[in-house]
């Protein structure tokens, strides 16, 4: 077996108890919150009689002790059955799959913009350290970093939808337009511009700052000086000698951020009414929709494990001194 496969297999086996612990822990934690799905449903309904409430609770299995509920949930999960969402009246897997696409699209778009633009700006700033360009980039980065995402989202909305009328306020598509083909793609893209911008502008600052510091550090190292003495041009120097080494900490950050973007997207998705996992997570907490929430947490745990694995592989690729073990 090639070493990379052995490595992958070992990581997978290690991940299983971690995921199980996460699921049991969150299940018990969530049960600590006062109220359950039935309370939330009744709250939405505007009241019901006691008999009705008791019947709902029995139907959802919420009248059982917590340990029984946990056992039932975990045995189902072992067969990858996420259960039924009482709030959405659909299997949790259907609900999750409906939402996953939007969130992945949003995450991928905003992270790749934040990453590429961030490292480019960071590298430029570092090469022109303490110049007017550097100051301008740094200040802008700080401003976006310090702006709360809900505020940034609302400001974008105010400028581009309300005042200029260029972009739609929210949603993922124009509902009653029934676009098909490329018109549909263009319509969805227009709806994603502002949420993507709001999310990426905030993360962009991270990469920019980190890349700037990293490049400045690497640029002073002996091997860069040697390369320059040997007559390497600035472009080659930058790409082959500095960037490759400066990227290591930035890739670490990318791996870490993949898991936090979902948190950031809760706010952005809620404000722009995007039907993604972030909004779903928020709604599930408010509605005490345990099964859906647990499904999201499971999905996130898996994503984090996979992304960590890929990050490790990237490390080894970028710096051959690092071994997979």
């Amino acid at each position: 077996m090639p070493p990379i496969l052995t490595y992958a297999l070992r990581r997978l086996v290690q991940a299983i108890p971690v995921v199980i612990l996460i699921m049991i822990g969150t299940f018990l934690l969530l049960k600590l919150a006062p109220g359950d799905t039935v309370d939330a449903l009744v709250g939405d309904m505007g009241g019901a009689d006691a008999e009705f409430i008791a019947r709902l609770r029995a139907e959802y299995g919420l009248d059982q002790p917590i340990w029984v509920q946990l056992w039932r949930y975990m045995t189902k999960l072992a067969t990858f059955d996420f259960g039924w969402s009482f709030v959405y009246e659909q299997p949790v897997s259907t609900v999750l799959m409906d939402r996953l696409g939007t969130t992945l699209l949003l995450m991928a778009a905003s992270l790749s913009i934040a990453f590429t633009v961030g490292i480019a700006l960071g590298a430029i700033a570092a090469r022109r350290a303490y110049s007017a360009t550097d100051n301008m980039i740094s200040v802008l980065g700080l401003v976006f970093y310090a702006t709360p995402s809900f505020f940034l989202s609302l400001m974008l909305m105010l400028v581009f939808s309300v005042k200029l009328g260029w972009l739609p306020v929210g949603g993922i598509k124009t509902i009653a337009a029934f676009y098909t083909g490329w018109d549909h793609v263009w319509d969805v893209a227009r709806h994603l511009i502002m949420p993507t911008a709001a999310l990426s502008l905030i993360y962009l600052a991270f990469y920019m700052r980190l890349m700037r510091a990293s490049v400045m550090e690497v640029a002073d190292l002996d091997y860069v000086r040697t390369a320059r003495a040997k007559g390497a041009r600035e472009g080659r120097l930058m790409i082959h000698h500095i960037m490759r080494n400066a990227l290591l900490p930035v890739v670490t950050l990318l791996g870490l951020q993949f898991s936090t973007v979902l948190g950031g997207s809760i706010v952005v998705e809620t404000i722009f009414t995007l039907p993604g996992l972030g909004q779903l997570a928020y709604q599930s907490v408010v509605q005490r929709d345990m099964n859906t929430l647990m499904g999201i947490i499971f999905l996130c745990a898996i994503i984090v494990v996979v992304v960590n694995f890929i990050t490790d592989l990237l490390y080894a690729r970028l710096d051959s001194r690092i071994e997979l073990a």
Partner: protein
Amino acid sequence: MTSKTIQAGLALAMTGALSSVAFTASAQEDVQRGGTAVIHMISEQRILNPALRASTGVYNITGKIMEPLIDKSYDGYEPVLATEWSGSEDGKTITLKLREGVNWHDGKPFTCDDVAFSATELWRDLLNYSSALQANLESVDCPDPHTAVFNYSKPMPLELFVAAMPDLGHPVPKHLYEGTDILKNEHNTAPVGTGPFKFVEYQRGQYVLAEKNEDYWREGFPYLDRIVWRFIKDKSAAAAALEAGEVHESGFIGVSMADVDRFGKDDRFDVGTMGYENNVAHSTVEFNHRNPILADLKVRQAMYHGLDIDYAIDTIMYGFAKPGRGPVPSAGGVNYTDDVPTYDYDPELAKTLLDEAGYPVKEDGYRFQLRHRPAPWGEYTQLWAEYYAQAMREIGIDVQILTNDAPGFLNGVYRDHDFDTANGWHQFRSDPAVSTMVWLRSGQPEGTPWSNQFGWKSDEIDGMIDAAASELDVEKRAQQYHEIQARAMEELPVIFAIEHPFISVTSKKLRNHHNTPRWNSSSWYDLWLEQ
């Protein structure tokens, strides 16, 4: 059955018919047909079946798709699927004439079978609020396809029955429900009705779409081609959508009060409380009478005197409210009276009363501590709670606010009774018997939300409530409710501090909007859009 009651029913039916004609005539001058109305919804209901869930969130959407037997207009009760109604002398039988030539959206005719099935299988057994109302319903007979006879084991006042129908009288198609698990029927989220609009699509978390019913029984209606309800949780985003013209109406105070105020000054929008007369609620202060301090009437009176209601109405509700006068709001018609004891803002008197009750100011500057749970139903419930806490501190009562989300609040107050005071609102549903009295009547099963879980018990008021619920004579019944209101204002089981309707922000492009007292829940057959 006497001729007198039949005439009463006919008279009601006639005024309804006339008023709908009047609306049509005035509207037809410059009506534009077609277009899509987009409506903002702040919260999402998973069920779209008003015969299973009595909630304005459900009516808001399904009211256009499924119709009740009787609706309410500003002139009285309006016949929809029932054209005439009458009650027998002993109050145990109510007879309805049903509209002929009405089809369900799948083409099958609407008949008495649907009404009988809905009434016994859904309204009586499964529908919240209705299961209490229809508890004594024995059967529904169908002497012919367009006559329904409701048989009760105890007298059911015709007035109460009719008043409940707009909210609790939506038939479902029997042929799609019979023999299925009603709670899990697929049509609960894809409704089939008789209304002016047909259900098309429900995308969770995003929107519900309905389109024009070409086969609608009101000839020439509806005017609109489509209606879209968009779920936008964030109030600021909803305000932006209204302002950008992407959304035409936001009801039930779907945007922040500051935005309501701003839209009120913008001449592109109509802002107001029209169309909510049937959805009036009270901002309250609810006491846990298990706490011996609060069980003392003097303390409750003192607390009422410590509240500056006018100030709260002006600053928190931007003037869109009026002082409460007991459990029945002023929209309650004959059952309402303002001839009740009141409590003026008088902090000095409040302090004197508290001293007299034996709660002097202690070293820490307070007389006693209270733990207060505000309901998370929107912005001004929270603001009212904060004002209440502040006002109480001024008369020496230290109120600590415990903030919850909806399940936390309902548990804390209605199941665990873990509070000293609480505030929320309680929506009035046309008739005091339908929902209002459950706040005062003792003996509610443990944990029932929006019921008397305050530990308040008065045999006298319990008796008065029971008597009024089965009183057939309209005048006598009204008299009984007036007495209950006066007693409630004397005994103060709950402070019904402020009566407030909801508020809508509506684009002026929408025409014929808010022309019924429960407009957001009504069918919108005459709504049109300026293009």
